[in-house]
């Protein structure tokens, strides 16, 4: 089975590109930040610098692990789903579920390993640049040298491999078990995340306006709420669809398609919700905090600066990562639909109508994602601004919100329409025949 895995990678490298990209980016981020641990552990690094470096590594490293897992998992799920026919064929030719599992997990591990190996070089450069940022802002003394050591290397490779293998295992298990209702675990996790998020957000009111840790509870609360929403994504989508009066052939078809594929689209919706919530909440809170510090006339402490740098780096990473994930999974999901598009065209849909359907689907998806992401973000922002400043809704939130929504909409609409357009170049008869 491992031989089969190797062959399938060698002969269809393109199919693994999405997974490879996720593994590569993830490994690069993890290694970049964990090399701060290595740098801090060197002899002769003063305690303030070491603390700054370790905090950055700890916080972003944690985020990074989660992100890598999510990203690789979503790429692999799409990959396995698209290969349903191939896997079924293998099962018919006598492969046991365990063998299929070994094959898919084997492929994922090899791809993860390649991704991690490719990431080493960029991560070294990235680590050096990150250290310079810290040094320029005076958070780390100039004398500290960058070091790319065992911690960065081991965590980077281990986490990427574990994430790949775990995600592949889950994806293939879901595929070989066939269609079955999702268990209660997901529901439980969703409610747990929503509850802890709500508690965390409410606990903001316990803090006083000048507490250094004031930003933590609403920020974590907003993230947890968005995770809760993300886990409930398919049901939220169905709820939105029920309240949507759409006319026109494209809209009609879009609503029906989305309803049927709600489960499949959950990954994309998840990324959208997380992206909107995390980016809006963190950036707005940071902007409010900076304004408040400026207004009070105090200079920023090292801690405050650390927090600012961290917030911006975290958001930057999440934005890039989630965008890549979105583009990745949307592109893969849309190219998978070539046959369906062909069937629509044979049933009498003009290319414009097919694009219209895809566009309508994406708009509904984006609006749903942005809506629930914003709800989660606002749930965190409002308590924070009430405690920190006086206004309920700061002026910053609008500009940031609009920017975040614009990025989300451009990424989703752009990807799906461009991919769909490319799919439409194949004549309808050919598109239908290829997959059959």
């Amino acid at each position: 089975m491992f031989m089969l895995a190797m062959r399938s990678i060698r002969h269809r490298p393109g199919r693994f590109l999405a997974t490879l990209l996720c593994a590569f980016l993830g490994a690069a981020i993890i290694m970049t930040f964990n090399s701060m641990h290595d740098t801090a552990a060197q002899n002769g690094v003063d305690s303030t610098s070491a603390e700054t470096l370790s905090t950055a590594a700890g916080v972003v490293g944690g985020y990074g692990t989660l992100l890598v897992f999510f990203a690789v998992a979503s790429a692999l799920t799409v990959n396995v789903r698209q290969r349903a026919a191939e896997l079924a064929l293998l099962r018919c030719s006598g492969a046991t579920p365990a063998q299929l599992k070994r094959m898919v997990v084997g492929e994922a591990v090899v791809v993860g390993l390649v991704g991690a190996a490719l990431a080493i070089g960029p991560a070294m450069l990235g680590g050096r640049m990150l250290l310079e940022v810290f040094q320029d802002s005076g958070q780390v003394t100039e004398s500290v040298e960058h070091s790319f050591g065992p911690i960065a290397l081991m965590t980077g490779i281990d986490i990427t491999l574990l994430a790949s293998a775990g995600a592949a295992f889950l994806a293939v298990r879901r595929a070989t078990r066939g269609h079955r209702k999702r268990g209660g675990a997901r529901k439980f996790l969703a409610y747990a995340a929503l509850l802890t998020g709500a508690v965390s957000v409410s606990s903001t009111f316990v803090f006083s306006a000048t507490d250094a840790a004031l930003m933590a509870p609403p920020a974590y609360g907003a993230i947890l709420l968005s995770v809760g929403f993300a886990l409930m994504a398919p049901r939220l989508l169905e709820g939105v669809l029920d309240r949507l009066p759409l006319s026109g052939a494209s809209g009609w078809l879009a609503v029906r398609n989305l309803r049927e594929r709600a489960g499949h689209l959950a990954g994309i919706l998840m990324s959208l919700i997380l992206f909107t919530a995390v980016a809006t909440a963190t950036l707005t809170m940071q902007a409010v905090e900076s304004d408040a510090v400026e207004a009070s006339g105090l200079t920023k402490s090292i801690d405050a600066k650390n927090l600012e740098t961290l917030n911006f780096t975290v958001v930057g990473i999440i934005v890039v990562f989630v965008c890549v994930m979105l583009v990745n999974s949307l592109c893969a999901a849309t190219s998978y639909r070539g046959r369906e598009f062909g069937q629509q065209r044979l049933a009498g849909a003009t290319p414009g109508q097919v694009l219209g359907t895809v566009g309508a689907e994406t708009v509904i998806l984006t609006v749903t994602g942005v809506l629930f992401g914003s709800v989660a973000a606002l749930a965190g922002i409002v308590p924070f601004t009430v405690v920190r400043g006086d206004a309920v809704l700061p002026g910053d939130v609008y500009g940031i919100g609009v920017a975040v929504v614009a990025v989300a909409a451009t990424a989703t609409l752009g990807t799906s329409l461009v991919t769909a357009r490319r799919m439409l170049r194949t004549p309808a008869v050919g598109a239908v025949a290829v997959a059959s």
Partner: protein
Amino acid sequence: MFRAGSRRTHDKGPAPEAVRLVKVTKTYGSHDSAVTALDGVTLGLGRGTFTAVMGPSGSGKTTLLHCAAGLDRPDSGIVRVDGTELTGGGEAELTKFRRGRVGFVFQQYNLLETLTVAQNTVLPLKLAGQRVDRGRTKEILTSVGLGDRLGHRPDQLSGGQRQRVAIARALVTEPRVVFADEPTGALDTRSARDVLRLLQQAVRAHGRTVVMVTHDPVAASYADSVLFLADGRLAGRLDTPTPDAVAERLAHLGDNAAMEV
């Protein structure tokens, strides 16, 4: 793109000839690997006829059907459907033309998995922006024997039932011509018979024109006449066919093709 463009505004009723092909040529590939699928085919099919197109594998049957239906563009020659010539034009224009006058039935059904039986059936009407009458949907599905399956999904149906949905979908727009590409190719004999009877009924009862590509002599015997195709050329015609006569003719076609090679 439509030379007889005036027909769009005031329909004068069906043209006497449903399908007309003049010297249609189609070549796939280029240079050394070029394969001539159609080599100057000229034919005319009268309104309200049921014609089967037969021939050995690679004889160009499917290409003929695709060119006649506007799904593929011939390299040269003229294709006229219901009196209107299909020339250039974009896919959107062609689609809009086909939507009103042409219905399709494929071997692989090509039903949309996300839609129910009823939704699949009315899809062409929806796409054409027409109002959909629930009673009419039920009526047309009842006529193909699926009146009690409106809410089912294609994957809950047998192959024969799916093909009957496809036929209902092809007929829902009341097209002048129905093109069927191996409609019984994936069906058992009993389901195949149901499907062929439905096609026959569309011709006899509703005056539609049906063109069906098949390799099955029994299926071809349901047609009024059979056109034989070999190496991209017409190789004969058989009226009021019986399965045995068709099979014998086909066997000789094979001999000829083999001898030429």
